[in-house]
């Protein structure tokens, strides 16, 4: 997949991240190098001012992908082109300077900040590391602006509180302020609301959405929740066992999923409408071990459409409709199956 258009801020080509495992004597003798293939040839792009959702089940490699993008983990191979520059080739020092433009918000707001620092020092730390504030006054001003951006107001009241004095939602706002204070162009948000209650998470999502719309920020939103991705993201990329299996606009992906895995993922999401009682148990079996993934298409042991070709030949990501990519040898069949299933359960009325 190539998309070297001017509106693309970040493009990832064939990204690989393997975590080597300890080798047994036999493996040493045979010259084998066992590894957990967490990210195994992933390609996608993020446009300026858009939210891309990276969706998948636990262990699919979505978090590792996010970390590798910022080189918090070194990629095994592949290219990460940020604003026209392949950042995998940058030195540590160059990378450190570039991080001003690329930031991350972690999942657990209880685990991702130093409990001994107050909010001011937590948010000011990136400024200090980057040497961006010339004076204490400037630092204070920029921290205050970031806190106002995440609606932690009155700002003076929050500046000198400690993480333990904040609720989960407030901590996550501090984490976003810390990412924002450098005025980055790109933010990776790794499950930023999965530990928060529903009534709270909306507030966080709206802040992120506003920042994207108003400032043209680009956001990679990593989540296990397809339902949330569908309503929050402009486009969605679906990952399975270290590979992207489908990518497209949120609406198109949800209404017309091309890949059997996306179709199953969609079906397994429970409806909030009690009048449509239906629990679909998805694909047979469990996600295989990423240290020893299946040959060919990684879904083939669980896929209802799998044939011999799927066992031997890895399907590439192919553009089947404008902006809609899927990696499956039998997209036509998968779509027929989808149409048949929809015909069988007439007109699913949108709930609510």
């Amino acid at each position, binding site marked *: 997949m190539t998309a070297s258009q001017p509106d693309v801020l970040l493009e990832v080509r064939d990204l690989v991240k393997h975590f080597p495992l300890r080798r047994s004597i036999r493996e040493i003798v045979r010259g084998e190098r066992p590894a957990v293939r967490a990210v195994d040839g992933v390609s996608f792009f993020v446009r300026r001012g858009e939210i891309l959702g990276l969706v998948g089940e636990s262990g699919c490699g979505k978090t590792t992908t996010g970390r590798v993008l910022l080189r918090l983990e070194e990629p095994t191979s592949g290219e990460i082109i940020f604003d026209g520059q392949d950042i995998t080739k940058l030195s540590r020092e160059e990378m450190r300077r570039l991080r001003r433009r690329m930031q991350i918000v972690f999942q657990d707001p209880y685990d991702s900040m130093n409990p001994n620092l107050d909010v001011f020092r937590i948010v000011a730390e990136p400024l200090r590391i980057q040497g961006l504030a010339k004076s204490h006054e400037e630092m204070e001003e920029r921290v205050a602006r970031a806190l106002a951006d995440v609606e932690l107001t009155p700002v003076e009241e929050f500046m000198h509180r400690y993480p333990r004095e904040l609720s989960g939602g407030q901590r996550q706002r501090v984490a976003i302020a810390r990412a924002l204070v450098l005025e980055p162009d790109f933010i990776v948000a790794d499950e930023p609301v999965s530990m928060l209650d529903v*009534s709270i998470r*909306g507030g966080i*999502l709206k802040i992120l959405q506003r920042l994207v719309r108003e400032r043209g920020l680009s956001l990679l939103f990593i989540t296990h929740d*397809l339902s949330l991705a*569908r*309503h929050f993201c402009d486009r969605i990329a679906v990952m399975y066992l270290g590979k992207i299996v489908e990518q497209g606009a949120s609406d198109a992906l*949800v209404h017309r999923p091309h890949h059997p895995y996306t179709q199953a993922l969609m079906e397994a999401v*429970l409806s*909030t409408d*009690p009048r449509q009682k239906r629990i679909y148990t998805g694909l047979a079996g469990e996600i295989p071990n990423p240290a020893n993934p299946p040959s060919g298409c990684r879904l083939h042991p669980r896929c209802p459409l799998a044939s011999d070709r799927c066992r031997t030949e890895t399907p590439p990501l192919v553009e089947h409709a404008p902006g809609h990519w899927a990696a499956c040898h039998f997209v036509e069949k998968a779509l027929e199956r989808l149409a048949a299933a929809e015909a069988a359960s007439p007109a699913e009325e949108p709930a609510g």
Partner: protein
Amino acid sequence: MAQLVVENLKMYYHTRNGQVRAVDDISFTLEAGRALGVVGESGCGKSSLGLTLLRLLPSNGRVVGGSVRLGSDELMAMEEEAFRKGVRWKRLAMVFQGAMNALNPVLTVGSQIAEAILAHEKATKEEAVERAKKLLEMVGINPARYSHYPHEFSGGMKQRAVIAMALACNPEVVIADEPTTALDVMVQAQVLKAISDLRQRLGLSMILVSHDLSVVAQTCDDVAVMYAGKIVEYGPVEEVLVNPKHPYTQGLTQAFPDIRAERAPIVSIPGTPPNLLSPPSGCRFHPRCPLADARCAAEEPVLEEKGAPGHRVACHYVSKSGEVAEVKFA
């Protein structure tokens, strides 16, 4: 037939800073064979409610009022010895949140189920093993896996094994606290399917505690919406989740858009849930409610039937005939 009748139940935690009113004057009836979902956010008292029913409270948690009747027995007044021998696990069982991670790693899964049977019933070892295998089969696990260890089970299988364990003594009522939280969607569906099948086969009554409206919508007959230690809305799921009347329930349903619905703007409820050490006066939701007025701050609304049969709401803004003020959260 009413299986479990809870009336005006109050359970407070006593702390150095005062009383935490986690379960505050709660009443509901669980009919035989039905499933009641209890939904609410962290700290609303939904898990405490389950622990109270099973009398498994930490030492600072005290039942300060109300009654719980199982059949004709009053549970809260019973001697601990009698409760332990005759009620807990035998008639009233619980699947705890995160229980699948509490399986003993050095014992086989099957033997842990058999042990639960032997601890509560006069059965021979062989009988217990037989029954444990049957229980595994009931939750869709091959009985041949009786002698496998927890690490050989996937997350979904462990969770189903824990459910099988709760059923070890053929209880009348099972309380499941967040039985699918932290599971991936497909695994969650498998576990919920197993629960639904069991309910049909065994005619179990169930209380399912969850923060997830869709889980309750798909598995329960009735739902109680809890907020700050109280039930604010109660009734059949088709009523409460389709025509929510309480502003809080309206907010919850708006914050949980259906995946198949048109792309909708993100919704949030302003403010944060209250501290139960000193809950707000009047209606506990009033500081966050767009409709709130002076009356809401002063006078606590009563949970009463309004409009549709069995649909009870505690809100001053819902009329006797069930007329609702529609609240749009943004």
